[in-house]
């Protein structure tokens, strides 16, 4: 109590004030330091993980982007040469960038719309909801490589059952994964088939919308579209933004399906004397992550250039996320 009085009470004289403050302030600081140490200690597993698996790699990536580094010999400083090479000379960078951005715009948009649509339908139907929920969720559990091989088989232009059926119906038979104009739409189809993750998230969000808001809107004369526009959408907007942001980040890292589809559709396997070169057909499935891997670990062993592409990808992901979060703040009326 005496210490509390000395801390908060008026100071009769300057000398007394100094005398009164002197023993208390260090004690408070010690307490704060102790608490900080304890907090840091408890946070240390995360802090160490963050430092090792995020901060250090990021700093290293920036460092190596200015180095010629093949992984066998010590790095040499080359200034902005790697950046110039990637942005102005590499014949694959802009192709990969265009393909990746195409996938980000088309695939993410369609996945969100499709996921929301399926989620809405399943929450509305009265009978068989369990069956449809399972049927739409199961494909999401399929391993990406197996699913892609399966799709490549089904969509084989010459021998696949899909084109056979289209032919029987007198409809055009696309080249799917073998046609540069159809390869990316085919990848989008594959992504829509595995919509289970978004469907479940949207279903949870839709079921969480207060029913009284729908009742009030109905009483005010709102039709189904107006109820969706003015009740459902505002309520699930955070979930939509979550789906878009995570979708953009995932699609910027799109690698496995594009690589497997290209390799299977090309009909060739990497064998003696040659490696499979990504992007079949005609560079249409080249994505930025494939370029990173190809530069750093396959043909070139050019880790410096691979780091440049990685940083471009990182900046792009940050820019997309930041833009979407700002947009979300506007939509939600957040500060």
């Amino acid at each position, binding site marked *: 109590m005496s210490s509390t009085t000395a801390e908060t009470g008026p100071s009769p004289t300057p000398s007394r004030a100094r005398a009164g403050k002197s023993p208390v302030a260090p004690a408070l600081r010690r307490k704060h330091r102790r608490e900080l140490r304890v907090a840091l200690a408890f946070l240390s597993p995360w802090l160490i993980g963050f430092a090792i698996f995020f901060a250090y790699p990021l700093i290293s990536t920036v460092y190596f982007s200015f180095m010629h580094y093949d992984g*066998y010999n010590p790095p040499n400083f080359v200034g902005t040469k*790697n950046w110039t090479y990637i942005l102005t000379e590499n014949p694959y960078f802009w192709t990969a960038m265009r393909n990746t951005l195409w996938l980000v715009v088309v695939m993410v948009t369609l996945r969100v719309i499709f996921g929301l649509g399926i989620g809405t339908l399943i929450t509305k139907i009265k009978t068989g909801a369990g069956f449809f929920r399972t049927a739409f969720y199961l494909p999401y559990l399929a391993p990406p490589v197996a699913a892609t091989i399966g799709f490549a088989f089904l969509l084989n232009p010459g021998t696949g059952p899909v084109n056979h059926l289209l032919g029987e119906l007198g409809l055009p038979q696309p080249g799917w994964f073998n046609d540069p104009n159809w390869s990316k739409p085919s990848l989008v189809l594959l992504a829509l088939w595995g919509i289970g993750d978004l469907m479940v998230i949207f279903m949870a969000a839709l079921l969480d919308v207060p029913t009284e808001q729908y009742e009030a809107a109905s009483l005010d004369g709102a039709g189904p579209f107006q109820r969706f526009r003015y009740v459902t959408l505002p309520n699930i907007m955070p979930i939509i933004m979550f789906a878009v942001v995570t979708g953009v980040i995932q699609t910027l890292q799109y690698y496995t399906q594009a690589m497997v589809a290209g390799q299977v559709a090309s009909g060739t396997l990497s064998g003696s004397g040659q490696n499979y070169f990504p992007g079949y057909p*005609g560079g249409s499935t080249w994505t930025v992550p494939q370029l990173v891997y190809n530069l750093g670990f396959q043909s070139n062993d050019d880790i410096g250039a691979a780091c440049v592409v990685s940083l471009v990808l990182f900046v792009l992901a940050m820019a997309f996320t930041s833009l979407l979060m700002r947009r979300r703040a506007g939509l939600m009326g957040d500060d």
Partner: protein
Amino acid sequence: MSIAQPARRGRRTAAALAVAASLALTAAACTGQPNSGAQGSTGSTDKPVTITFWHGWSQPNELAAINANIAGFEKLHPNIKVNAVKAVSADTITQGMRATGANAPDVVSDFSTTDVGKFCSTGAWIDLNPLMEKDKIDPKTVFSPAMLSYTQYKGDQCSLPLLGDAYGLYYNVDMFKAAGIASPPKTYSELAADAVKLTKGDGSQQLGYMPLWDYYEQNTGYVGGQYNPTYFTADGKANLAADPTWPALFAWQKDLVGKLGGYTHLEKLRTGYGDEFAANAFDKGKVAMQLDGEWRVANLQQDKVSFNWATAPFPVPDDQAASYGRGFQTGTVIGINRNSQKQAAAWEFVKYMTTNTGALVTFANAIDNVPSTIAALKSPDLKLPSTFQTFLNVAKNPNSVTQPATPDGDGYVTILQNLGLDLQSGKQTDVMAGLKKADTDVDNSLAQAATN
């Protein structure tokens, strides 16, 4: 205070444990083992040396063959033990060469000859020339010129061939007879004429020859290689636009594509064919002639195809008819890791695997590959079918061709192939403009790889 103390002590203890656990986890993740070995030693009776050998073979017959060779080596060199690691991919090899721990390989065999340029130029694999010189091995008399070419970069013989692949023409004898063709084509003009003659209707049932660049093994480098092009100038610059090969090759292919129904039609046929190894169009009797490697002999025998077939050297350009008999060559390469502490023992192993005639012949017989030394190619112990003789002859032919290694993983091969694909699809229509752009891209890629 007396109550608060134990609680604080408890929190401190918990915090300390958390820190300790984090550090322990981190340390465990980063801990490596010290490298110990007998650098330069080939071992002794009481202290044998164990070397680690990475290879890509994975099929049971391949593993049996490579393990038999390893056993033969160990019998000959009882002081050297070989720890073989199977089914190692090219990407893993790259990572292995970057590693320096005790588990890094001492000897590596790689299916990708495109890796030779980078492993030589970076020094990841040691130059074997001094070792061969010391052991009085003259590579020029032991190995074929093409095989020596694809295993070195600018004189640095950082790898040696460990069996090889040779390419030739497979043709359906029954279809030839039915079309009234007596012998396989020897020039590109004959190939085109026979392709048209052998095509029935629109080619859906029977196509004479599939000329597209992305049809199985066929690509610009292998077919263009028959011209024996000069890929680079003396000062190392790309020479694609200046070499007459590429305009001639692309014109020949465009003409043939037109005669066989055009790109769109052929592309539809090509994409309708099955996988190269599971349902090859030649094996299925859909294509009458095909460029392929020597391994298809075994594939055709295993598939027990219902038609008669034969092999011949792949045709050559009309103005180089005298060079008929040559073919494209590539193959598996083997080298020694610069970081190996057991290079002397590793060299003994590489020497045995690449120059021992008995070992090479046994291995070639077992996995249906082309032996990689001149002596093994001539060995009477080779027990390969008569249709295989074409590929042995290609390998022996001093005019056979390959592609030079470059430090960017043979980036020019891919750039050239992509140009061929763009030209055949009509995405690129100006051949010379495409070749000049390809030259620029190749030079940029090489300059980037050479930045030091």
